[in-house]
């Protein structure tokens, strides 16, 4: 096979004035602007592009387009690039894949000799013994993994996505697709036309026929003059529910690949047809190509595919290839006509090139010397988009391909997928399809507009669903050419021959799916585009059935592969911060991630922060604390329904702690709720529970108690929340608070007041304390949060005021024995396990989880208890298990643990079996190191100040 660049072709797409230099396996090459990588290499006389997966056979051009299984190369850090499609760029570093040490000399080609042993599925039948050797075998097998190399330093570059909502999307820009787009657009539809190729025109692009070229010029001019949005080098990769389409755009000016998500009102599938290889001995030898490959090479890139050709033709494409070959001076050694019974039985030559073709033609069996064999054996209908829409295409033996059966009525097929016609016939069918698509899209649009509150009102009734009155395309007879009288490769990517498939069927893997899985046929990078029908045919042959009886396999998305980068797009990861964040960042904060929030964990020394709070006064930014504003006369009823305790008699200005349980009695959330006014309450939730509790509240109000008058508004981020804690907190607050009496009697523990703080009106102050200290929880309108924080810092400098973070707060809450929902409780912890039995008021008429909580009294439930290790210097890990003595029987676990700087000892909370929950019980704790230590359950949850004198102060 000797390929070479020819003189200027009238249809060529290369710019011979623009020379591009690149490297191929380290050697310098050049091509022209408009070349694909493969055409440039072919023009330079290269004819081996890759090695096959299993036998490492040399492989050359087969189809010279995106689907060519033999043209996968590495370009820089980009593996598995389709050299038949990717346009050449200056400076490209192109390398062959799957060959070692080089493309020309590949050691693993020795596998070819073992072919008879390496039948499909051979690995299932060996390497079982000795078992200990399997990991070694596995490592060796893994070296056969095909494909390119990834570079772990490849950055995730710019890949932003786009949404669009066109009336009509046309997938495929051949004459039928373009005609559909133009007709739909003329009918008033917004249209997106998606061309898989670099330019619209489909097969007209590489036709040397004058009428085809005239039509192409006309269609392109009409598109330019229309409102149709055209995407080239783009593919509709998937059709999902309700015509949600994935489209990958490979030539966006600034994105590496852009994923476009389109909600099409109607989809026109016009992908054309894919050339199907013919199965015979030696059909994968370099020099065996499809007529499309020959015509693309000649007409698009001016490359002569060979010097002396045999053409096997069963259709007009094969005939056209003969004419094109003759025009560039390829000697036609023979034309074997598949329509009249001619066939090819094998090729002969070295593994590297075709030297002769064994044919059965009109002269009987003969050997014809040739360096090129062009095989026009028929087509595969790429019905992927129809399959994804739920259609089960039907096989027509007289036309030797599948046709749509009953796709949903918002998916319309045209072009070769729908049938055969001359160019005018294809254009007419395309245009009729476009008009139908536009009419149906108008009905969808009417419905969407009439159902969507914000949309423009629509006049009149919804248009009727337009009937399909298109004159159907014909079906040209075509011989069924799946396998010649010899066996050959069915799947070039996977090195699966028809022999392998027949053997698999005989072993019992005789449904298509089983055979596919057993042999891996169609599982490779060309996704069955070339292989599926031949695979089905081989199975059918082995079973003695027809293709229709065997059926087809399901084409799964995507239609064409797309990069993880395009799918990921820009990674949206919302970050939440409080208005005080700039201060934290300026003050050496160590940040902790808490869901979307960034929160201060500490400012260098959490133990010192704790001591400062216990001795002086500290500030913590607790803005992420969930806050719901509740208004209306029925709020007390709502609170009673959602919390386990009672709420009907909470006075104005009072605050109460509440625990929420789900309907299965499991602890859901907890927090305090205060009554700010007659019909006005503020509920606080855990930070992580804020969103969930809001939905929970809305769910009850909207579905179970829609008659209640309550308005719920999340106000978590409306306020900057600052807890001022420590014995000197009252003194500090009195310096910044202008209009409230902070005296212990006027503003006692568990009350709430409205105040002006540091000049900011409408702040709320709560006398509550998670830390166990006298504390004031301030909720400041968020637009003044930083101001108030800084004012507190300034005002308290002589009091020793300092910030503290979550870690300090965690230590202090543990000293006080406050449990954290989700840490000290888990997904099965029922309300009573927290030890708050008295909180649960079973005499209320109804509340969430009531029955389970009532029955819980009779159950043996694990209990949350406070635990102190006997050795005060040992801090068991959070997760350390509580076990029975020296056994491995699990009796509980440590859920929280810290070293207490206040008590100078380790302290814990844990869950234990109920019979171990009494104060004074001795426990054995198994540390992660394996050491077992003694620990004791203490009487109260609080390790520190159990009477709560400090926080009431």
């Amino acid at each position: 096979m000797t390929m070479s660049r020819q003189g200027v072709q009238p249809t060529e797409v290369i710019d011979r004035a623009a020379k591009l230099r690149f490297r191929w396996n380290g050697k310098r090459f050049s091509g022209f602007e408009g070349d694909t990588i493969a055409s440039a290499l072919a023009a330079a006389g290269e004819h081996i592009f890759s090695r096959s997966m299993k036998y490492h056979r040399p492989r050359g051009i087969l189809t010279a387009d995106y689907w060519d299984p033999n043209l996968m190369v590495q370009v820089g850090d980009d593996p598995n690039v389709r050299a038949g499609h990717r346009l050449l760029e200056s400076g490209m570093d192109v390398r062959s894949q799957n060959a070692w040490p080089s493309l020309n000399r590949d050691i693993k080609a020795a596998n070819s000799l073992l072919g008879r042993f390496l039948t499909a599925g051979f690995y299932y039948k060996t390497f079982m013994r000795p078992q200990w050797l399997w990991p070694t075998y596995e490592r060796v097998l893994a070296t056969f993994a095909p494909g390119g190399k990834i570079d772990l330093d490849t950055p995730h570059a710019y890949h932003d996505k786009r949404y669009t909502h066109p009336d009509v999307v046309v997938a495929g820009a051949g004459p039928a697709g373009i005609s559909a787009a133009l007709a739909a657009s003329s009918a008033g539809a917004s249209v997106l036309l998606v061309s898989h190729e670099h330019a619209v025109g489909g097969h007209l692009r590489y036709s040397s026929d004058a009428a085809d070229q005239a039509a192409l010029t006309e269609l392109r001019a009409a598109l330019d003059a229309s409102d149709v949005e055209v995407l080239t080098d783009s593919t509709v990769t998937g059709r999902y529910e309700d015509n949600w389409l994935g489209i990958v755009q490979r030539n966006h000016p600034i994105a590496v690949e852009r994923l476009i998500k389109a909600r099409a009102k109607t989809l026109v599938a016009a992908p054309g047809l894919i050339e199907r290889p013919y199965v015979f001995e030696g059909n994968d030898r370099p020099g065996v190509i499809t007529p499309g490959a020959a015509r693309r090479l000649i007409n698009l890139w001016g490359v002569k595919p060979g010097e002396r050709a045999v053409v096997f033709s069963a259709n007009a494409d094969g005939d056209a290839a003969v004419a094109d070959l003759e025009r560039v001076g390829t000697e036609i050694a023979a034309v074997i006509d598949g329509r009249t019974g001619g066939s090819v039985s094998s090729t002969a030559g070295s593994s590297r090139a075709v030297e002769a073709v064994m044919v059965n033609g009109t002269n009987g069996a003969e050997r014809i010397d040739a360096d090129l064999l062009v095989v026009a054996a028929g087509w595969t209908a790429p019905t992927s988009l129809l399959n994804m829409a739920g259609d089960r295409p039907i096989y027509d033996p007289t036309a030797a391909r599948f046709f749509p059966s009953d796709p949903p009525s918002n998916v319309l097929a045209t072009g070769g997928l729908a049938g055969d016609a001359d160019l005018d016939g294809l254009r007419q069918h395309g245009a009729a399809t476009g008009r139908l698509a536009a009419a149906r899209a108008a009905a969808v649009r009417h419905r969407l507009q009439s159902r969507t509150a914000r949309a423009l009102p629509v006049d009149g009734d919804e248009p009727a669903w337009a009937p399909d009155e298109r004159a159907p395309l014909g079906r040209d007879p075509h011989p069924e050419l799946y396998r010649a009288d010899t066996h050959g490769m069915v799947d070039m990517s996977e090195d699966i021959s028809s022999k392998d498939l027949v053997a698999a069927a005989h072993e019992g893997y005789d449904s298509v799916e089983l055979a596919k899985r057993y042999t891996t046929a169609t599982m490779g990078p060309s996704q069955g585009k070339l292989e599926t029908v031949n695979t089905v045919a081989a199975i059918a042959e082995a079973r003695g059935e027809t293709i229709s009886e065997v059926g087809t396999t399901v084409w799964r998305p995507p239609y064409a592969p797309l990069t993880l980068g395009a799918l990921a797009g820009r990674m949206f990861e919302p970050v939440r911060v409080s208005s005080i964040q700039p201060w934290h960042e300026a003050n050496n904060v160590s940040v902790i991630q808490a869901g979307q929030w960034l929160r201060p964990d500490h400012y260098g020394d959490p133990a010192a922060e704790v001591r400062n709070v216990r001795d002086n006064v500290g500030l913590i930014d607790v803005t992420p604390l969930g806050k719901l504003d509740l208004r209306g006369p029925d709020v007390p009823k709502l609170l009673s329904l959602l919390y386990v305790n009672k709420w009907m008699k909470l006075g104005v200005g009072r605050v109460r702690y509440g625990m929420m349980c789900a309907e299965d009695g499991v602890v859901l959330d907890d927090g305090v709720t205060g009554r700010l006014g007659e019909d006005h309450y503020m509920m606080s939730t855990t930070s992580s529970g804020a969103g969930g509790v809001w939905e929970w509240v809305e769910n009850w109000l909207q579905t179970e108690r829609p008659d209640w008058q309550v308005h719920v508004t999340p106000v978590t981020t409306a306020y900057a929340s600052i807890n001022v804690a420590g014995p000197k907190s009252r003194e500090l607050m009195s310096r910044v608070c202008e209009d409230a009496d902070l005296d212990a009697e006027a503003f006692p523990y568990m009350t709430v007041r409205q105040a002006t703080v540091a000049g900011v009106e409408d702040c709320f102050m709560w006398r509550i304390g998670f830390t166990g200290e006298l504390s004031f929880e301030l909720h400041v309108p968020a637009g003044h949060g930083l101001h108030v924080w800084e004012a507190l810092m300034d005002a308290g400098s002589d009091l020793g005021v300092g910030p503290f973070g979550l870690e300090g707060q965690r230590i202090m809450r543990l000293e006080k024995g406050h449990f954290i929902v989700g840490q000290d409780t888990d997904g099965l912890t029922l309300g009573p396990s927290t030890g708050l039995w008295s909180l649960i008021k079973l005499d209320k008429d109804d509340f969430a989880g009531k029955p389970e909580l009532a029955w819980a009294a009779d159950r043996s439930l694990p209990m949350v208890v406070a635990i102190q290790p006997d050795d005060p210097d040992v801090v068991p890990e959070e997760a350390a298990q509580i076990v029975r003595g020296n056994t491995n029987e699990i009796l509980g676990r440590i859920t929280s643990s810290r070293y207490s700087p206040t008590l100078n000892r380790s302290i814990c909370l844990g869950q234990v079996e109920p019979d171990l929950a009494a104060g004074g019980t001795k426990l054995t704790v198994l540390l992660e190191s394996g050491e077992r230590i003694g620990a004791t359950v203490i009487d109260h949850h609080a390790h520190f100040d159990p009477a709560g004198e400090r926080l009431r102060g």
Partner: protein
Amino acid sequence: MLLVPCPNCGPRNSTDLRYGGESHARPDPNTASPAEWRAYLYLRDNPAGWLRENWYCASGCRRWFSVERNTATNEFRDPPLPGDKRGGAA
């Protein structure tokens, strides 16, 4: 991407909503037997066909609504009915 017919916002992408599961009535908490209550919590019809279920229009109107969907085909029975019983709360 499924289009879910929110009765307020119109058809919206399913990722804009939260699924609330099968619709079923909450038993009277004061009279329900353990079997009835736990059937409410845990047991589901889970049909392969028409199912009345709840959705929450989380990114849109923030309203819960109930609608019939065919779980085999993901087709919605239109138009949806607003307001119904809550899904399992466990």
